[in-house]
């Protein structure tokens, strides 16, 4: 590699005292065998792609699929909160209980008593379901502003 030698007065003036490029580069000392070892260092850092051809082999995927299925079944069965067979009421028992007249009557009476008690306690209490009350203190401007806000929420925020 030689120093650029185009006719440029400034360049020529500079060139002479500094020597050529090789001389300039020689001031950068490099560890011994650096360039001999560099390709190996780079090769060691290159990530080799994972070969996936083994996935096509039945010997791999049949046991893998079987193992996965069994694991999934066991996971669902032993997952906390999953009702176990011995703890659940059978479908037959459920049907019987619905059609058990005494049971149904008991539930009905129980619920009606609870409702009566609630009504007696809260007859004058405003539970917020009266539409007239909800919009009582809302002006038309409030509604317009609300609609504007709702509309603006869909706009994309400007990224700065």
């Amino acid at each position: 590699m030689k120093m650029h030698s185009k006719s440029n007065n400034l360049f020529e003036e500079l060139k002479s005292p500094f020597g050529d490029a090789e001389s300039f580069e020689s001031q950068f000392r490099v560890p011994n065998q650096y360039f001999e070892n560099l390709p190996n260092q780079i090769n060691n850092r290159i990530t080799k792609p994972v070969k996936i051809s083994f996935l096509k082999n039945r010997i791999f995927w049949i046991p893998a699929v079987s193992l996965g299925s069994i694991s999934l079944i066991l996971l669902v069965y032993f997952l906390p909160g999953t009702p176990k067979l011995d703890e659940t009421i059978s479908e037959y028992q459920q049907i019987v209980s619905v059609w058990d007249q005494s049971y149904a009557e008991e539930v009905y009476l129980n619920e009606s008593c609870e409702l009566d008690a609630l009504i007696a306690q809260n007859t004058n209490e405003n539970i917020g379901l009266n539409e007239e009350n909800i919009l009582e203190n809302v002006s038309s401007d409030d509604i317009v502003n609300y609609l504007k806000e709702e509309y603006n929420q869909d706009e994309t925020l400007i990224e700065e």
Partner: protein
Amino acid sequence: MEHLSDHELLVMFRNEDQKHYAFNLIVAKYQHRIYYFVRRILISHEDTNDVVQNIFIKVWNNLENFREDSKFFTWLYRIASNESISFLKNRNLRTFFSLSSPEASMLNTIKEETYIDGKEIQQRLLQAILKLPKKQQLIFNMRYFDELSYEQISEILGTSVGALKASYHIAVKKIEHFVTAN
């Protein structure tokens, strides 16, 4: 095997069986030029070593997608320029709260670095180059040391030939002023 052209090396690289071999030939062919190109910017051997390895790993990862719209050599220099500049930017961020500026620490490295052993006049030239803005440094180095034409530098940096000539001219003036003043 250094006589193989870039195109021949790329053809070899695209052949899966010869990929690693072709890549090693590419590294062997360009490692000196790229190393010294980066070293003139970063000064420290350790930093240069990291960046040079990153450059060639980037080449390995992207060479399959290289369509030869530009010359391989130009593409390689563009990667080297980007990697060197981004390394400097990251280092500047890391040393933001440091007492000494990165430029000052590089100038110190010239004096203290174990691996630097040059004539005084050459060290002054190096100091003068380091005083230039980063892009001007690249332009000066490519033109002065690597003997690239303005057209090649234009392709690497995406700057017009006229702007490059002006930048190089100003860089030479600045260096001349620095060297004579010191």
